[in-house]
């Protein structure tokens, strides 16, 4: 095929700036999908994604565009996830493109992920076309945004004013893609070199791999070698999404599409891996590959122990489509058998938790999330801990290290001091700040990741009246003065409530946590003591007095059915609680630590 008529591009934006809606308009305009068939935001497949207004999985769609100068083009639109948890996926999707539409909300202006994505796209060598979206909104200030673009070093003359919601600017955008995005280069006669940027699981076809070819071609029968994973699969089908799956004979240099090769697990496919032809392989894989590692962990436990297998099946099913979800069985003295799960970030965790509860109808407890710690024992052994309960005894620990991130916050200057106070309170170490535009400062801090996974984002929003936005990347592990804080309920240590905290904050957290639990745990038939302890030292104590009243005073003929139903309802409520020792503890108690400022 004629590569001059091929354009590969993606859309990048800060969350909620209207990326998915714009994708819809492009699909509609090019006739990939009729308005009538269109469910809002077609590319966001899952109900949950739609509800949250974010895209979780990147997808690629082939569009046919008949340009104003009467030429037929093929566009590959690669949709990218829009949250900091999924940065790596974004970077791989970018690498599959030559151009990027950078969407900026006309009233919000440039935000942290605008800049983060802009740099990612620039580093990937993409031609960037700025699109100022939502110009129909009251409060839209496109002139200001144009200025901000200039300050980023973008050509504001090329910026397109659009309203994806109203369909304004769609054709201009398509024309700009033709004009500015360069066609892919590469050589079809060279051996196959292709990049995996995503995958999904289909019940009938197994794993569907999304890839971009840089050299060579691929068709059914090719033995595809995944160079990083060092595994080979025979390709049984290649095709493109239009947006429905369409099988074609072959895909060649510069093209984007999918293949199927009898792959059972998405975990056999590594995003960022290089595909080559096993019978005629290239020497060096594409650069920039990273093994995706979960950063945030928590325990999932079924409330009803009989639902353990149900939870296991559900996690396995979710994992089919989400290679960044990790889980392994674990047991807790308090909660019984469950799973320790690893996620890219807190949002990723919340999404999985909601899907388990909503789609699989599993009543479960999620324990407080934590990061992974490195422990060096006195014996000189290095252990990684992803569950605070497993921290070796204080006497055995020589050193505990925790992961650090580089935090980047973009804010109007007036909130700078608030934000710097917040970062300091979260044990941040100041790096630098700089004006990215006249009205936007970028602040950099190095911070322990554990301080970020909890409520950092919400607090940031509140101290900046919603204006500040954030982005972060992992740097390294650093030594820290950390201790394990245990919680005892009725003198029993509830291992699932243990957290690892900085020594300076341990007293405060212990006290707050005990108070929180006192509010959350309902009165029982007996007095319940809640204690927070570091090792054997009790640092806080609260007590929940025994329940005194739970009675139906009146019960006569006409009341009986109603009262039975009332009792049944009370019973249902009890079922949602976890019995630990003799104490019934509600689900939210296990996330109480999240509520502490």
């Amino acid at each position: 095929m004629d590569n001059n008529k091929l354009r590969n591009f993606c859309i990048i934006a800060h969350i909620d700036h209207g990326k998915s809606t714009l994708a819809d308009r492009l699909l509609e305009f090019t006739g990939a999908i009729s308005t009538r068939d269109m469910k809002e935001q077609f590319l966001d497949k899952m109900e949950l994604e739609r509800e949250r207004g974010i895209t979780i999985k990147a997808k690629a769609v082939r569009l046919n565009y008949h340009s104003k100068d009467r030429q037929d083009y093929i566009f590959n639109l690669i949709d990218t996830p829009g949250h900091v948890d999924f940065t790596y996926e974004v970077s791989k999707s970018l690498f599959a493109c030559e151009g990027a539409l950078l969407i900026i909300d006309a009233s919000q202006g440039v935000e942290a992920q605008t800049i983060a994505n802009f740099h990612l796209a620039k580093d990937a060598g993409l031609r960037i076309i700025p699109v100022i979206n939502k110009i129909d909104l009251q409060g839209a200030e496109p002139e200001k945004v144009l200025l901000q673009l200039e300050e980023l070093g973008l050509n504001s003359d090329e910026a397109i004013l659009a309203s994806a919601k109203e369909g304004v600017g769609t054709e201009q955008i398509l024309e700009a893609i033709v004009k500015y995005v360069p066609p892919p280069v590469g050589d079809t006669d060279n051996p196959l070199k292709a990049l995996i940027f995503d995958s999904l699981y289909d019940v009938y076809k197994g794993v569907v791999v999304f890839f971009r070819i840089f050299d060579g071609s691929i068709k059914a029968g090719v033995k595809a070698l995944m160079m990083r994973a060092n595994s080979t699969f025979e390709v049984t089908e290649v095709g493109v999404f239009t947006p429905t799956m369409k099988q074609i004979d072959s895909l060649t240099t510069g093209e984007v599409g999918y293949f199927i090769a009898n792959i059972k697990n998405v975990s056999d496919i590594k995003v960022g891996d290089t595909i080559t032809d096993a019978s005629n392989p290239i020497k060096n894989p594409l650069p920039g590959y990273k093994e995706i590692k979960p950063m945030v962990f928590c325990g999932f436990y079924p409330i009803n122990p009989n639902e353990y297998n149900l939870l296991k099946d559900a996690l396995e099913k979710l994992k089919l489509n989400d290679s960044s979800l990790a889980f392994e069985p674990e047991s807790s003295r308090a909660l019984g058998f469950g799973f320790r799960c690893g996620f890219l970030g807190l949002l990723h965790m919340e999404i999985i938790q909601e899907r388990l509860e909503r789609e699989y109808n599993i009543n479960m407890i999620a324990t407080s999330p934590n990061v992974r710690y490195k422990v060096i024992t006195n014996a000189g052994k290095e252990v990684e801990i992803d569950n605070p309960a497993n921290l070796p005894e204080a006497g055995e620990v020589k050193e505990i290290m925790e992961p650090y991130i580089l935090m980047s916050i973009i804010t109007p200057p007036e909130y700078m001091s608030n934000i710097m106070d917040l970062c300091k309170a979260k044990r941040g170490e100041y790096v630098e700040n700089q004006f990215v535009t006249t009205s936007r400062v970028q602040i950099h801090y190095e911070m322990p990741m554990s301080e970020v996974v909890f409520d950092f984002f919400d607090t940031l929003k509140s101290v900046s009246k919603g204006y500040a936005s954030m982005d972060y990347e992992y740097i390294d592990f650093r030594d820290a003065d950390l201790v394990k804080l245990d919680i005892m309920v009725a003198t029993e240590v509830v291992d699932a409530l243990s957290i690892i905290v900085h020594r300076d904050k341990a007293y405060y957290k212990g006290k707050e946590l005990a108070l929180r639990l006192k509010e959350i745990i309902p009165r029982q038939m007996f007095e319940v003591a809640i204690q927070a302890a570091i090792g054997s030292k009790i640092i806080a104590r609260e007590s929940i007095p025994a329940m005194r009243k739970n009675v139906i005073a009146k019960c006569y003929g006409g009341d009986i059915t109603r009262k039975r139903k009332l009792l049944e309802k009370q019973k249902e409520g009890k079922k949602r609680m976890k019995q630990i020792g003799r104490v019934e503890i509600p689900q939210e108690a296990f996330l109480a630590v999240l509520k502490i400022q």
Partner: protein
Amino acid sequence: MQIRSSAGLYLHIPFCLSKCSYCDFNSYPVLGYQGLISSYTDALLEEVKLKAGQFSIKTVFAGGGTPTVLPEEELKKVLTGIFNEAEINAGAEFTVEANPCTISVEKLKIMKNAGVNRLSIGLQTTDDRTLKLLGRLHTYRDFVTNYKKAREASFKNINIDLIFGVPGQTIKGLKTDLEKIVALNPEHISIYNLILEPGTQLEKYVAAGSCKALSDDVQADMYYIIKDYLEAEGYTHYEISNFARKGKECLHNIIYWKNEDFIGVGAGASGKIGRKRTENIEDISKYIVLLKEYKNDILHEQKISLAEEIAETVFLGLRMLEGLNLAGFKERFGKDFFILFKKEYSKLLDLKLLKEEEGSVKLTRTGLFLSNEVFVEFV
């Protein structure tokens, strides 16, 4: 002759002088229904005829609402009419609920002549300010006057209804209530912990903050003060909220707590025969029309499963301080209580909420005011 099975009979009179602030019963101010009363009592008697025929009636209870709000001739019509429509055992307990300000010498005479042998008078509290908050139209003095009239009309079995745990009430106020009531020497005292039912006026006051609900702890303290006081005064505590002189326990209500059969007639009334529960339509006009036109079950009918019947029998039976008789349970269901509820019982025993005594399972003293914690284990 065919052997009739026995049952209680409940008659619902859904009219009151006015709605009390805590009440969520099926009752309506009588003033708006004057024109309907006569058709209503017709329908009521019609329903008794339809439903009670094959039973021998061992107790009658006319409740409401306020039955004594009926005009004299209507009251007479109902109370005497049922004897024409149903087979009522000689000497059966026959209770009528009454409220102060609705009891006249003439009405007392009508009741006495009709065979009513038990009166249940709603007082709620002796404190006039609290009476006002509760939306009662009478004062304590009104009550005393009525009570004395009833005694003069030689009613020898009188219950007084009280409420405790009302916002603003104090321990001292409660003790005053108890002292004054005991001084009147009623045969029976029902004393209910206030339930703030959703949608009632009182619940709205509390939600709006114009008065404050008492803490659970204070209410629990009050409950045990009541128990100890009345027991010391010679009343038997025989159900969670009921006290009586020996032999004056309310037989009709015991039918409910033993989960035995009863017929309910009137708008919104419920009944239970075997494993069938019935519930009549609440709307008065619709009730009258349906009964006149269809002369049949106008009612919502619900089958209860064996499991539900067992659950109900257990939690109703445990309401009585004599408890759930184990031999009786086995005879009724063919199953051993301890085998059926081994886990539940041992948990509740461990929590000191249940105990076994004299062949029965009973709530402990602490268990009484925490009885829902016990009951949920059985539903």
